[in-house]
């Protein structure tokens, strides 16, 4: 493999440097000259450590009509990601060593991003019997994060045991916080808009009640809990207080909860149906502030591809979820102050370093230093782009941002020094 020389990149907005990569690792930074290296001119571009997504639905195995590991990781690369954590709600559910190993192997074969499977907490996500968490942890997929995402681990004794059990290998539980009795039949955020539209409401308190309970359980057991897709202002308060007390709590927010509100439901277009639902403008403002401040640790996409028939229907019949991988960076930049005001180091922290740390992906989320793996993305901070669903790399088209003009473009993504995206185009050959 020829050496790679990234010339004159602005490293997380802190100044220009060249980065020389050999055999997938950084060998030199600063002002570098190299013979026979493939040169990528990064003049005017920001270099970020490759993005890490804590929350991706790749749909394989089971719903390959909506997304595959290959198509989903191509979308990830296009969005600047070098690693994604694949959620467990596939068919079959990722609740055995066999399934998580299959997903990891598919990721490796595709070669567009590292795929770290998340294991189910309970068998079949049913919340009745603990899945073979130890077997998944000790499998080739080395699962550390467990989640019944799509479903809440609602039973408090199941949650307590799961938190205790994963302590043996330093694991964590990623909780989809939704008290199920408070959200039976729920279709959208409960509030003024749901009252008018006659759609059954998903009250904020259903999320907050579980977060409050699980903060207490985490403190009681001394275990780690991570909160998926935090969507309300009051959840932020509870997490802030828990962190101040020293609880081992982390939290993610989704791009759509940083930009869109429940007003979008007025269209009755299910492209805006998502779980947890789009909330109020005031929640959006608090979530943005919490992300900037670090009370919310990471941006996670909850990338949820759906086949056309699952969205091209009436609201109540539609499946919840929206695409996220290819738009997440742009929306994060918007939410953190826009392309001119944004602090790139904070962007790197929330989209790469911290999520890598939470997921235990040691080779990711690292700024270029001699010896580190060359997992980077190059971003054009001045460019804009228009979201055209048909142009997305995902197999599905359910983006809520169709037609929107978004800031910043991903010019290149490198996975261990190999370009998965170059000049804004996905590389077709990816074998290492």
């Amino acid at each position, binding site marked *: 493999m020829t050496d790679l020389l990234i010339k004159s990149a602005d490293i997380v907005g802190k100044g220009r440097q060249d980065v020389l990569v050999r055999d997938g690792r950084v060998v030199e930074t600063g002002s570098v000259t190299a013979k026979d290296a493939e040169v990528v001119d990064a003049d005017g571009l920001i270099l970020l450590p490759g993005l890490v997504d804590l929350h991706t639905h790749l749909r394989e195995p089971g719903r390959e009509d909506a997304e595959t590991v290959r198509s989903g990781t191509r979308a990830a690369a296009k969005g600047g990601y070098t690693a994604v954590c694949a959620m467990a709600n596939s068919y079959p559910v990722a609740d055995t060593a066999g399934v998580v190993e299959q997903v990891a192997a598919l990721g490796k074969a595709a070669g567009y991003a590292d795929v770290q499977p998340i294991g189910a907490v309970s068998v079949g996500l049913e919340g009745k019997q603990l899945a073979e968490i130890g077997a998944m942890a000790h499998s080739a997929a080395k699962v550390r994060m467990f989640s019944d995402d799509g479903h809440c681990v609602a039973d408090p004794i199941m949650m307590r045991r799961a938190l205790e059990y994963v302590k043996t290998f330093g694991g964590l539980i990623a909780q989809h916080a939704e008290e199920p009795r408070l959200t039976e039949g729920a279709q959208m955020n409960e509030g003024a808009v749901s009252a008018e539209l*006659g*759609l059954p409401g998903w*009250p904020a308190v259903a999320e907050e009640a579980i977060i409050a309970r699980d903060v207490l359980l985490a403190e009681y057991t001394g275990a780690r809990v991570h909160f998926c897709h935090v969507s309300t202002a009051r959840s932020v308060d509870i997490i802030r207080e828990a962190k101040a007390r020293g609880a081992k709590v982390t939290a993610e927010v989704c791009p759509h909860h940083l930009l869109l509100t429940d007003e979008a439901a007025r269209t*009755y277009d299910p492209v805006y149906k998502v779980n947890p639902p789009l909330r109020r403008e005031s929640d959006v403002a608090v979530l943005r502030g919490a992300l900037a401040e670090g009370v919310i640790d990471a941006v996670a996409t909850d990338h949820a591809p759906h086949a056309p028939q699952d969205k091209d*229907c*009436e609201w109540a019949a539609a499946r919840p979820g929206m695409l996220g991988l290819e738009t997440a960076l742009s929306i994060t930049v918007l939410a953190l102050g826009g392309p001119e005001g944004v602090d790139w180091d904070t962007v790197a922290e929330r989209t790469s370093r911290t999520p890598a740390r939470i997921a235990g992906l040691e080779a990711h989320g690292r700024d270029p230093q001699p010896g580190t793996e060359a997992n980077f993305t190059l971003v054009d901070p001045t460019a804009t782009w228009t979201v055209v669903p048909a142009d997305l790399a995902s197999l599905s088209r359910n983006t809520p941002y169709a037609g929107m003009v978004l800031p910043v473009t991903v010019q290149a993504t490198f996975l261990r020094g190999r370009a998965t995206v170059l000049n804004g185009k996905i590389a077709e050959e990816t074998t290492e």
Partner: protein
Amino acid sequence: MKHLLTTKELTRDEAELILDVTEQMAEAVTGREVPKLPALRGRTVVNLFFEDSTRTRTSFETAAKRLSADVVNFAAKTSSVNKGESLRDTALTLQAMGADAVVIRHPAAGAPQRLTEWIDGAVLNAGDGTHAHPTQALLDAFTMKKRLGSVEGRTVAIVGDILHSRVARSNVWLLSKLGANVRLVGPPTLLPKDIGDWPVEVGYDLDASLKGVDAVMMLRVQRERMHAAFFPTANEYARLYGLDERRLRLLPDHAIVMHPGPMNRGMEIAATVADSPRATITEQVTNGVWVRMAVLYLLLTNGETR
């Protein structure tokens, strides 16, 4: 007006036009030997009902036939995505058959609005989930106008399960637009959250809310709601929120009692109250046909051949 989906989107002028045309329809047909007008001859009106509602379907069918339209009844199974045809495919089928207007009743809020994206004809919402039922509100307003002389300045109490009621929602927007004062009355469990911006007063005490009203509209309450803890028992509900003879006497003498039907006698309304001369329940049914004639006529002709 291309479609009629909600009363919220109607302007006051449009609402008043519909009520004026309703009056004309009633006058044109009443007392005739053949109660039929030729206005919609050659037009096809499809009744697309995903919920059983013989009352509403028959009312629309009668209205369309009195305007000489061809009526097709398309009874569809509830569209759970996995069973039966999708709403979109049904819409494309109707589009291919050349429906001029589709009257849709659907258990999912917003289904009529989705339908407008897939077909060219007029869409008339005959009730979608707990969202809207605009022709019911229009016939209620027409009934008030006939019985009370006007809607403007009148006070209406809407009582019962507001949370699950498309009739209540449609009446809130329409009656307030027409200048009425609207009171919503029910237990907090059956009132939607966050309705502070609605043009209504909200009360939990029925006796107090009946003072000075010109009309009281009782909503149907499903007994099964008690299993989801909306209220303890049917008896307690009837005691606190049912309209019985004692409460009827609290109303001013001229006040009317309305109900969209079907009624639970003994639950939200006592049998004697339902049968009293103050009750307008059967008039509402008659007026429903005139209102639906007016709406079909306006949507399909843009009022041009009037």
